């Protein structure tokens, strides 16, 4: 024990240090978001959001990029959500902690630690080279689904585990089958958590660029189907910024991304909490 500083003084000093660390963290966020919004929001207006880029993105808007992002996220969620939630339901409800479950968990954890660029290479090797497909948002969506899967699986697992056993027992005692119990009692109760997981997975898919770098192409055109090439927002920001095409539009794109994330964070924190409060009768 350091006798040079008395415990009471150490307590006071450390309290200041702790408060400082919390403050620094908030300040870091405020600086980053603040700066980007400050420079970017003036660029963002309805025209920016709804019109096509001109001159390789040096001016004009980002409408095709927004649509690309929507397509790619949709594909990702439509694939990852059933797989992730299904896997969670199976692990939690249809089996015990055996070797298969351990293997599944290990697979999911390994998947979660794969860097995004390796997903990108996989996309290249599988979709472009092996399947011979051209650039498409669909391929990007599938790759992103694989990235989002571990998140959805883990969060859904936790959500299902949190449902009190008594609900399930009540249902089974009335003579309901396993699947009836799961679909009518357990899943609805776990929905707030599962929804959070899906939203988090969605946010992950929306933010990725390295994973889809090699499969979606670089087209600036509006993608009218998921099989068209496209350029989701993060990729557009990366291209504009590294090629120095337009600082203003870069800020604008960055601002749009930041706002999307803010909306998602607010939604997961408030709406989902309110729903669970209603359901639990709190």
């Amino acid at each position, binding site marked *: 024990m350091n006798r040079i500083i008395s415990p009471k003084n150490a307590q006071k000093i450390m309290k200041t240090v702790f408060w400082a660390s919390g403050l620094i*963290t*908030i300040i*870091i966020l405020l600086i980053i978001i603040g700066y980007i919004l400050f420079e970017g929001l003036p660029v963002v207006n309805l025209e920016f959001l709804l019109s096509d880029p001109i001159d390789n993105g040096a001016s004009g808007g980002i409408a095709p990029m927004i649509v690309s992002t929507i397509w790619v996220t949709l594909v990702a969620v439509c694939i990852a959500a059933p797989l992730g939630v299904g896997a969670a339901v199976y692990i939690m409800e249809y089996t015990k902690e055996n070797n298969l479950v351990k293997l599944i968990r290990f*697979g999911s954890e390994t998947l979660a*630690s794969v860097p995004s660029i390796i997903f990108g290479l996989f996309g290249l090797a599988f979709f472009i080279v092996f399947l011979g497909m051209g650039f498409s948002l669909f391929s990007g969506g599938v790759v992103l689904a694989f990235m989002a899967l571990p998140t959805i699986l883990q969060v859904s697992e936790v959500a299902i585990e949190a449902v009190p056993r008594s609900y399930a027992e009540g249902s089974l005692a009335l003579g309901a089958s396993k699947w009836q119990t799961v679909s009518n009692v357990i899943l609805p109760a776990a929905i707030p958590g599962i929804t959070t997981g899906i939203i988090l997975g969605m946010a992950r898919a929306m933010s990725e660029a390295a994973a889809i770098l090699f499969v979606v192409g670089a087209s600036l055109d509006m993608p009218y189907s998921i099989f068209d090439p496209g350029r989701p927002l993060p990729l557009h920001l990366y291209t504009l*910024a590294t090629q120095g095409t337009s600082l203003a539009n870069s800020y604008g794109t960055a601002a749009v991304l930041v706002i999307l*994330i803010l909306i998602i964070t607010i939604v997961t924190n408030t709406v989902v909490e309110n729903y669970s409060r209603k359901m639990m009768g709190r």
Partner: protein
Amino acid sequence: MRENIEEFLVEKGLLITALSSIIIILLIIFFVLSQGAQSIQSVGFFNMLFGMVWNPDANQYGILPMVVGSLGITALALLFAVPLSLLCSIFMAEVAPNRVRRLLKPVIETLAGIPSVVYGFFGLVVLVPIMRVHFGGSGFSMLTASFILTVMIMPTIISISEDSLRTVPHEYKEASLALGATHWQTIRNVVFPAAIPGVITAIILGMGRAIGETLAVIMVAGNVAQFPSSILDPVRTLTANIAIEMGYATGIHYSALFATAIILFLIIMILLVVANYFHYKKKVVIGGGYL
């Protein structure tokens, strides 16, 4: 009878979804290996790993400079991020009043959700010029990249460490306080040590994220495929190497980039295994309710 068939189909259907994560990871390993095999065979695994020059035009595929770049940036980022994150997580779990904690949590979540390109962009337009002014050179350097990575991995380390601290049984805390210890003494001697397994996990995950980061690093690290002589020199990471050159790589070059990915993944796996070893060792030593 009909119900039984439905139940059976449902169960098997769910089983297939459950197997998906295993199937996918196997697919990824297979395809990446298949494309990388060619260069590993012709250049040689250890030649690549320890080769000191990366010059595809001259048929040289040594990735050691990039390994140093990746590990160096990650080490620096951990050096900055771990102390600050641990302090912040202790703040949230033990010191902050409820209202402040409820404010801080969404802040951390937001930081976690910001796309990496946005961080990279911020680094490019704000941090690089500042570094140029204060440290000279181009502003693109190992240090710049590590600052950006620090901010990117802090949310991971903070949120997992905070959870770990909150699950320390509060009987330990009460026992310490009842003996006349101050809050800080209690944190330092009882609460934090008990949370160490979780903290180690948090740091491991942060480390994984740092090493795997691609675009944010490309935007601020300088991307020169050479050994850095100081932290102010530009570097290229393994991830950046792949992303930058894949656009125009063919033949052995193309395969070598896949091989880079394989080596990157191996490095990550080794780091995870080593770090997990310490995690479990700590768990066992602490004993009691943590086994």
